[in-house]
């Protein structure tokens, strides 16, 4: 459990950050979101990532937390990226 929640938070955080980007908004919903919505997504995405780090630090201390957080963020960003790729690919068919 000490990995699952922070990892899910990282996944959600990166999903938020990805949808705060013009290119992804066009790819997924066909048009850009309003500036305010984009801003909110960006702030919430970043905050959720920080929450994940906060949890890891609380549970594991700074040293181990930073290592695990680095792994979680790398993998979560990669999964969001693969998800977007799959979506765009399916959408094109």
């Amino acid at each position, binding site marked *: 459990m000490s990995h699952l929640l922070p990892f899910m938070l990282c996944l959600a955080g990166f999903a938020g950050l990805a949808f705060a980007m013009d290119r992804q908004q066009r790819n997924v919903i066909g048009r850009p979101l309003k500036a305010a919505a984009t801003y909110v997504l960006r702030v919430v995405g970043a905050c959720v990532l920080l929450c994940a780090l906060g949890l890891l630090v609380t549970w594991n201390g700074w*040293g181990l937390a930073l290592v695990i957080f680095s792994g979680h963020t*790398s993998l979560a*960003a990669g999964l969001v990226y693969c998800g977007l790729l799959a979506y765009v690919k399916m959408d094109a068919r």
Partner: protein
Amino acid sequence: MMHSVADEDEPRLTGRGIRQSMSQLHTWAGLLLGWILYAMFLTGTVSYFKDELSQWMRPELAYQAQVPDQAAVAQRIADEFSRSIPGSSQWSMKLPDARNNSVYAFWRTGPRTPGSRGGFGEGYFDPATGQKVTARDTLGGDFFYRFHFQFHYMPVVWARWLAGAAAMFMLVAIISGVITHKKIFIDFFTFRWGKGQRSWLDAHNALSVFGLPFHFMITYTGLVTLMALYMPWGERVAFQTAAERQQYAAELSAFIAPGRPAGVGAPLASIEDMVRQAQDRWGRDNAGRVTAVNPGDATARVAVTRGDAGRISMSPQSMEFEGPSGRLLRVRESVGAAAETRGVLYGLHLGRFSDIVTRWLYFLVSFMGTAMVGTGLVMWTVKRRQKLPNPDHPHVGFRAVERLNVAGIAGLSIAMAAFLWANRLLPQSLAGRADWEIHVFFIAWALTLAHAFVRRPKAAWVEQLWAAAAMLALLPVLNAATTSRPLWHSLTQGDWVFVAVDLMCGALAVIHATLAIRTARRQPARKAARKPSSSPAAATASRQEGT
């Protein structure tokens, strides 16, 4: 690693900006030792599971469902040593833990005499019986681990210098890549399908950027692990007397220098009690190594070191005991700030502190790093193909890179799979069996290189990727046919080490097969698109053949 396509597509500006300079530096630093870097990355990645791979490669050793009591095991092995190597001046055993189902030990044979350090012996022991195990002779996962930083068939020091040079090139490639990649945040989640060079670039960027903290950390800390070799001068100036050097060594390892024996016999006190004290201090399964110097002599000393689990540092922590009485002499749990900095950086590189999930994270992100180097190597040819005057007859340098890519990337997969096949197929009675497993690795790799030079690049890629896929996919079948531990047996027994290796082979086979299919489907460049030049669209169409 991370070039900007815009830099390539736009006409060159007069004067060279920092980005163009860095782009070139990145390209050449990445290419020159790129194949060595790829091999270091892949074997290093696999090494995160070297202990598990070693278990798989010694199928005669039973699966260890629970870690045996380390204190009892230590006593059992020590008793065996007192019988089998009575005159030894030093022995050291690595206790079994959650990842190791055997005890690895080494020892000096015979006493140290002036002018002679005595010979060395080593072996694996069964924790349950204390007897030397009769498993097949193999280096196990340690071969990939050692290859990762000292290769093979060459003097260790030269090899480590070569590994250091490659790591330094990698560090340069990472830093120059970050400077070159001007849209690191804007392009963070960008991938453009079917756009030839752009697609390769996007994949390369994603693999690089997502794992950037890891890639930087692993390269830098890799250099730190061998810093005493690469930069010995500070230490030479600072530590000049024997006492200073000994104190320095003590900051880096728990090794006890054997003193002069008194020549008065005195049996060792209970090793079990000593390890029990270490367990009380560090946790039941968290004693690492037990080392004895001058065992059987009145001057005997025993050190029990702490295991690696849960602490990001390789700095030694140990309890030292007087051998004959078993009295605790001292406990060392900290080192100086400089030594601890080194210990933490070293620990970060090896990742031995990891729980199983963190270990998988290490593996996966390191695998991304391997793919980053691989995509970078392939992109070198993809980018240049469009500029060739005649792509059917590229110049010799291009041809060499193209073929080295095939053997360096697809060929290495075949060689590594061949190593595992050799582990299952070589007869147990073969003299120098462990060495022959390694010879098979290199013979297979050499054959893939020859094949890459004989065949056309695209055919070579497809054939080698299929060969790797087949060898990996059939490995669980071979395991089932040659051992009594097939996948279904492992599943019912809860033997997760064997299950994981079998399933990983399957997953890697799927990756290789997918790459083979995609490469085979790729259309060769159209002749009309070959005009040198002019239109980026035409150039894009001509890039793909052979990659």
